[in-house]
């Protein structure tokens, strides 16, 4: 099967590409690369440049790109998704696989989560069957959300946190997300379907912070305050973590929404042994 991966150089893309080794793989990036295991193509989902070459002969397309960090990321993501979907339809693609966000269907979703949902809708707007996997925080090296929490834990002995630390979430290991993504490749049962992909444990962000801290041999004091806006939080995160304010703000806004799996159909389709949170965090810290 011919498979094209948009976002092959991102955190999820890098974990996914080796799992697709049995396929004829085209990896797409915005700058020229030459790494083994795939045919590398330069293309830009936003402008449409190079898309025809990237999608030529493709049966399955993975769409793992986003514009988080851009001022108008919502508009950019919608436009890029539409462009890729249209070109995919022209190229006769049989399946688009998209990684969206858990909690994105919440009617009061944050702009970031809403954007993830709208991106999925735009991908599906031209008739190519889309398989959407929805994930909360991905626990892996380089994941913006995980690196944000890690930055806080490493730098702060005392944390003054907004009330979002009590929001429940269901983080999933990077390896598990990659295995789920690879598992739906060309799987006709998954055409046109959406699946919640949660990890094996539900926890609050506070618990997550405490568990990561324990793995690092730290015990930060956490003081929860009821008033701390996403804007102030993002500025603070910009100061104390490696994540920029423009990326942190939409992420923080999204933390108000519970991000848990509402259904478990993916576990019937792909019955994987999921990685416990501590093990996933240990791998990310290694």
């Amino acid at each position, binding site marked *: 099967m011919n498979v094209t991966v948009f976002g092959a150089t991102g955190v999820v893309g890098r974990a996914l590409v080796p799992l697709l080794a049995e396929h004829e793989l085209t990896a797409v990036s915005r700058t020229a690369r030459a790494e083994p295991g795939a045919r590398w193509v330069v293309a830009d989902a936003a402008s449409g440049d190079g898309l025809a070459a990237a999608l030529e002969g493709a049966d399955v397309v993975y769409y793992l790109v986003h514009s988080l960090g851009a001022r108008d990321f919502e508009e950019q993501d919608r436009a890029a998704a539409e462009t890729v979907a249209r070109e995919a339809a022209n190229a006769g693609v049989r399946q688009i696989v998209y990684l969206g966000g858990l909690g994105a269907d919440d009617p009061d979703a944050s702009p970031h989560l809403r954007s993830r949902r709208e991106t999925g809708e735009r991908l599906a707007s031209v008739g190519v069957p889309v398989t959407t996997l929805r994930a909360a925080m991905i626990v892996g090296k380089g994941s913006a959300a995980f690196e944000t929490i890690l930055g806080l834990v490493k730098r702060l002995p005392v944390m003054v946190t907004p*009330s979002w630390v009590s929001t429940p979430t269901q983080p999933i290991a990077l390896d598990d997300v990659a295995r789920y993504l690879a598992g739906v490749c060309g799987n006709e049962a998954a055409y046109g379907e959406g699946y919640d992909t949660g990890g094996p444990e539900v926890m609050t962000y506070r618990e997550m912070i405490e568990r990561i801290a324990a793995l690092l041999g730290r015990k930060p004091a956490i003081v929860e305050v009821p008033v701390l806006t996403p804007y102030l939080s993002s500025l603070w995160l910009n100061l104390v973590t490696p994540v920029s304010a423009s990326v942190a703000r939409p992420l923080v806004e999204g933390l108000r929404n519970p991000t848990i799996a509402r259904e478990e159909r993916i576990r019937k389709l792909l019955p994987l042994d999921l990685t416990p949170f501590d093990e996933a965090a240990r791998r990310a810290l290694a």
Partner: protein
Amino acid sequence: MLESGGFESRQRMLVADPVVEASEAGARTLGVTYWQAVDRLTRGAVRASWTGDGGKLKLLGGATLLTFGRPELSFDGELVSCRHAIQGGLLALRAGGSVTLAQRPEGDQQELSVTVEGYLPRLAARVGAPPWTGMLYARGQSPVHAAVSFRYFELLLRSRDS
């Protein structure tokens, strides 16, 4: 009100189709959506805060109104439920009772329900005491609870339809 002084209340809604899946995830969704309804109705003034041991319902991040045990998730056939044992807090006279969020078949429809059982509210009139001593509960806490239940049903249905 029961002879024991405990309170029971039940709000329910009938819908055509299941709102959540009969699974652990579905049961958990009932609980998470209920606490989300509390947050939304009170505009964040009252929020549930959870640890591995259970939860606390806090007013403005400070005063603990109620404490709960860990959610007890159940999905037996078509009955899906999430039960929280009430363990104390300012609004509880003592530990006891529970809040249960459930979805169960009712004829050819599905019933969504919020059931409070055996709860001993501090603000309610004691057995044999004049009714006015329970005004704070009757005119304050009880209507808020009913409003939360309504918002909960609304959120569940909106999330299903979105």
